[in-house]
Each structure stands twice: as structure tokens, then as C-alpha cells.
């Protein structure tokens, strides 16, 4: 009796804590998504009322898969999402660990956070200089190793790669910060005990730091992946001179479909397809972490 009363109380408390969130999602999320699903079956140019827009059934969905640019966008986004998420994760973990017990940590952290606060326009401009085919420093450095010059941002073979490198550079700041917060949550006493046992730094990293960071890693993997699937700014800024098929990503494709082509229905359909892909990816990641013996973390 007592137990079930406690249960009920815990349920009530939980829903009180969640009530503002649920209210918010009902208002600002459910309506928009419901509206978009409805529109995805219509040919709606946003200039007439959606009610008077003709119903086209699944035409928006089927037309996407017969559009080679959509297929390219899908392919490029997959490459982009997996490569940048994993690269950011590994590099920012290494940097966060290196910065954790360093002299002047606050200053170093600021330096590594600088890309995150530098306005996107400046980032695009300076990376444009770095990638400049005739005077850029990238070709200069590669030249020392006898690698020939390339037009990094226009050559269809390299443009996406060049953008991904910048994306990793720009994306590490937030991850380093989150890893830092995660590292700070690990009690120092664990390390002290391990030191007494004579464990090496590498050993401590594998047996203390990494396992205890798993919730953080899961978080960064999931949110990094979700974010990367929706990459927009960098490609919008740096990918404009390359052939579209080599750099087009889904979010750019959807944005242009909506606001250049006036096909909100088709853009919404693409968003639904993106949603399904991201959802499946996320569930697979969550499942993988559960299999790794981390029931409690998921």
C-alpha cells in the first residue's frame, strides 16, 4: 500500500516537473509538425491559402526520389554526418582531457572555444583565404610534401571534404566544453585511489575516465548526429562555388525547395524523410549503448 502510494506520488511529481515542457511541445511543436505533415501531401506555394492548395497524395514523396539532386544531397549528408560527428567526438575528447589539468586552463579553454563564438561570416571569409587555390596556406603547406595544388572549394572531388574539415574545426568548441563539464563531474577520489594502486595515465583514461564519460559521449553522439544531419550555415557559405551535386546537403535542398522553388509541400516531405532517417539512426545509437552494458544510461 505504502509502496504504491509512493509510486503515485512520484508519478505526479514527475509530471509536475515535465508540465511546462509538455505544454511547450504541444503548442510550438505538435502544431507545426502536424501542419507540415498535412502540407507534405499538397502542392502549396505558400502564397495561396494552404486550404485551397491542391492535394497531390504521395507525389511530393515520389518526386523526391526521382530527383538526382535529392539523392546527391542524401548521400552527401550521410557522409557529412558520420564523418564530422565521429571526428568531433574523438578530437574534442582528447583536447578536453589534455586541457583538464593544464596550467591556465581557463585561457586555453577560451582559445579552443573561439571558433564557436566567431561570427559565421568571419569563419567563412578566413577559411576562404586558407583554401585559396593560388595563395592559400593549405596548398602552401601541402606543397612542402610535394602534394599538388587543388581548388579545394570548387573541385567536386574535394569541396565536401574541405567543408567537413572546417565543420570539425568549428564544431569542437561546444563538445570540448561539454566534455569538460563531464570530466569535472568525475570525483577526484577515483583518480587518487588509482594512483595509489600505481595505475598509469593511459590506464586511468581507459578504466576511469572513458567509462564514466559514457553518458556524455552518448549525448554528444546523438546530438552531434542530429545536428550534422541538419547542417546548413557552413555549406550555404562555403559550398556555393562548387557543383551542386558534390556539396548539396539535405537542409539546403529543403530550404531552396521551399523558398526558391515555392514548393513547401515537397520541402515538408523531404523533412519527413529526414526525420525518419535521423530517428532510426538515433535509436540505433541508443540501442548500441544499451548493448554495451549501459542499461541505466539509456
Amino acid at each position: 500500500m505504502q509502496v504504491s502510494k509512493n509510486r503515485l506520488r512520484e508519478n505526479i511529481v514527475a509530471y509536475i516537473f515535465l508540465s511546462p515542457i509538455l505544454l511547450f511541445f504541444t503548442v510550438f511543436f505538435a502544431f507545426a509538425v502536424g501542419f507540415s505533415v498535412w502540407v507534405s501531401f499538397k502542392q502549396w506555394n505558400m502564397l495561396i491559402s494552404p486550404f485551397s492548395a491542391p492535394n497531390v497524395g504521395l507525389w511530393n514523396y515520389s518526386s523526391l526520389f526521382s530527383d538526382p539532386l535529392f539523392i546527391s544531397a542524401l548521400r552527401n549528408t550521410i557522409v557529412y554526418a558520420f564523418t564530422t560527428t565521429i571526428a568531433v567526438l574523438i578530437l574534442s575528447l582528447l583536447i578536453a582531457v589534455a586541457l583538464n589539468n593544464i596550467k591556465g586552463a581557463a585561457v586555453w579553454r577560451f582559445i579552443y572555444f573561439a571558433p564557436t563564438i566567431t561570427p559565421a561570416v568571419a569563419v567563412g571569409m578566413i577559411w576562404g583565404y586558407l583554401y585559396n587555390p593560388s595563395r592559400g596556406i593549405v596548398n602552401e603547406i601541402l606543397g612542402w610534401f610535394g602534394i599538388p595544388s587543388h581548388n579545394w572549394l570548387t573541385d567536386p572531388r574535394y569541396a565536401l571534404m574541405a567543408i567537413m574539415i572546417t565543420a570539425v574545426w568549428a564544431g569542437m568548441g561546444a563538445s570540448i566544453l561539454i566534455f569538460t563539464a563531464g570530466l569535472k563531474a568525475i570525483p577526484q577520489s577515483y583518480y587518487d585511489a588509482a594512483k595509489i594502486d600505481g595505475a598509469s595515465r593511459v590506464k586511468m583514461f581507459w578504466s576511469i575516465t572513458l567509462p564514466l564519460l559514457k553518458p556524455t559521449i552518448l549525448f554528444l553522439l546523438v546530438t552531434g548526429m542530429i545536428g550534422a544531419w541538419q547542417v546548413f550555415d557552413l555549406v550555404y557559405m562555403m559550398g556555393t562555388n562548387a557543383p551542386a551535386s558534390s556539396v548539396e546537403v539535405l537542409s539546403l535542398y529543403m530550404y531552396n525547395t521551399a523558398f526558391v522553388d515555392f514548393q513547401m509541400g515537397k520541402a515538408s516531405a523531404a523533412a519527413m524523410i529526414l526525420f525518419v532517417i535521423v530517428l532510426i539512426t538515433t535509436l540505433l545509437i541508443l540501442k548500441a549503448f544499451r548493448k554495451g552494458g549501459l542499461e541505466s544510461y539509456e
Partner: protein
Amino acid sequence: MRRVFWILLLVSIFLSFSAVAKTVLVIQTHWSDYQVNGIFNKSGKLIYPGLKQYAEEYMKLHPNIEIKIREVPFSNYLQQLIISHMAGKEADIYDLYSLWGVQLVSSHILAAPPKEIINAVKRNFVPASVKGATINGKVWGIPSEIDDYALIYNKKLLSEAGYTEPPKTWDELVKMARKLTKYNSKGAISQYGFAFLSGWNSAVVHPYLSLLYSLGGSMFNKSYTKCLLNNQKGVKALNEELVLFKEKATNSAGNVFNFPQNTVAMMIMAPWYVRSLKQAYGNQYTKYVGIAPIPPIKKPATLSYTWFFAVDSASKHKKAAWDFLKWFALQVQPKTNTTRAGDLEVNVISVIPPNKIDLRNHQKQLADLKVFIDQLKNAIPEPNVMQGAQIKTILMNQIVAAWNGQKSAQRALDDAVAKINSILARYYH
């Protein structure tokens, strides 16, 4: 005492009503900063009025009218227009790019102008601009700006290579471009003989269409049911561009910042770029920058596009809106023999005014744009076709693919035409 109270009450009711009755006109524009706020000298005196000062002048003349200016950056202009129109918060007056107009007209978002305005536009404006503001055979507004394309060249780089004159034919341009292209020690282009711009659809498509027009070609058939670009003329125009790409004498990595760095000898550009170059070169401008007609393949030709003032069909004050536009863009001021819009376009915005009287009476201020103005006689307006921006982007993607060697000219244009025709089929029968 009581009577005083009643009188006061009546007066205040009347006043509040008259305040409510004030007609509010919202003008949406992509202009900003001094273009709206006017140009002042160092001691704070107004030299050239901006849009705001004209609005204030009009409000003084018509105390029952209040004008609000809604500044929206060019890149978000259409998006903002769509969202505000959907939510019933539309502006009354827009300054619109002609290509956007097609979609807006077909969705009944623009109001048809009064007959007298249509007649005045047809009578007083440059033919290319009238065609630009014409959609489905009807004029939909008052042209506010006309642009065409010309060859912009670096005098210094040309003379260093022994050229005293810009090229007269496209063949000559290709020959000169080869000689003017320089490479660094690792084989990358360090100086463009001729640079093709990329990055936005007009930069790629407009020069190509100018070449197509020089060959006497056309993008569509008369009824817009077919795209014609994969015919012999369309393919030839693209192949003329590809000559330099195939020899690695140019690439698509050039951008608008390269010219003032003196690393571009020649490029095809619109008048707005002249403004940027004047800023970058300062008093060195005339020493470096030369402008000439686009060297023709066959006959002289250039593409033009238009901006025009239009009124929203949902506006509650259409008549007041047209009245303002009439005063602003059509009425000739006796003192200067120019229009107010013309003064603003010439002195503040630095674009070519489409009204003939402004072109005639602003010659001194327009001296730098003389070549562009002269070429208006050879200008063929960008076709006002449904889904114009989408079609242009499709064409850009295929042209850039051809530039980068991913496709042959024929194949790229075949692919573009297939896609474009499927779009046209939805709107034109």
C-alpha cells in the same frame, strides 16, 4: 460646466477617430542604411535625401497619410514577404525583382495598376524595363531599376600585356584571356585572364544567356512550353565558355573580391559592381577599371533585368499606395526635370534609372555607367517565366557541372532542359 465636458468629450472622440482614420502605408524595401536614411555631409547637413526623407515630404503634403518603411535584407526579402502575406501583415508597396513578380502575379498577390499608370510606364520608360515589369502580357508596376551586363576589365593588367583596347569579339577575348592568365609555381591560377563568377544563379546564368542572345538564340519558345537551350545555339554558347575551362585557363573559384585585388583581367558584370569597385579603388578607379560592351560572338547583345514598385492586392489602401508611387516615381519635378525616384536611384542607390527623362537629365552623374546605358538598346530582358528562380538554379547547376568537366555541354543542357520542361509542363499548356 457640463456642456464643456460634453464638448471636450466630443472633440476627443473626434480626434481619436481622425487619428485612427490616418491611412498607414507600409513600404517594403531591400534598401538599407543611407539608402533609406539619406546621405549627410560631415557637418550633418542632408545632401541627398533617402527614401525616408521622401516619405516625410509626402506625409507633410498629405497629413492624413503615414508612411512606414520596412527594411528587409535582399537574401530574406521573398521569405519575409511570403510569411507576412500568409499572416495578413503584408506591406502595401513593394520594390520587387521582376523574376519574383511572376509567382506573385500568378498567386494574385499583386494589385493591377490603374490604367493611367500603365500608360505612363509604357510611354516614359526604357523598353527593356517595361518588358521586365510585364508579366503575362500586362504591366504590373513602375520600374525602379534596370540592369544589364558589360565587360569589366583591368586597364593596368591589359596594358602590361600589351593591349591598349578591350576585346571587340568573343574570339579576341579568348585569345587575350589565354595570354593574360598567369600561374604560380605549383600550377594554380594566380591571375585570371577571364573570370567566370559563381556562387549565385544570376552570376552564372546571366552571362551565359548574354552569349546565347549574341548568337541569336532564345531560352524558351514563345509560349513557354519548351526550353530550347539544348539546341545548336544553346550548346554553342556554353561551348564558347568551356574553351577556357578545358585549357585550365580559368576555373569557377573566382569571386567578386578578386578584381580589386588585381588578379582578374576581365569579367562580365552588372552595374552594381561598379559601385563596389569605386569604393575599393578610391581615386585610382579610372586608372584601373575599364568598361566595354560584352564582346559579341555574332551580334551585340546583353541580358537585362528589372526591379519594379508594385502594390499588394490585399492592401486596404491601394489607391493611396498608387497615388504615392505616382508622386514619387512618375511626377517630374519642375526644378530639375527629373523624378524623385530617379534622383534617389541615381544619387543614393547608384543604379540606372529606367525612366527616360531621368536618363536624359542625370547624364553627368551616370557617366561611369555610360556603357551599360548605351547597351540597353541591345538588351533582351530576362524571361518572366513561372518558377523562374528554380529554373535558373537548375540551369546554374548544370552549367557549373560542365565547367568542372563533369559533363559535356550537350549533356549538361540536355539534363537541364529535361528538368525545366517538366516544370514548364505544370504551368504552360
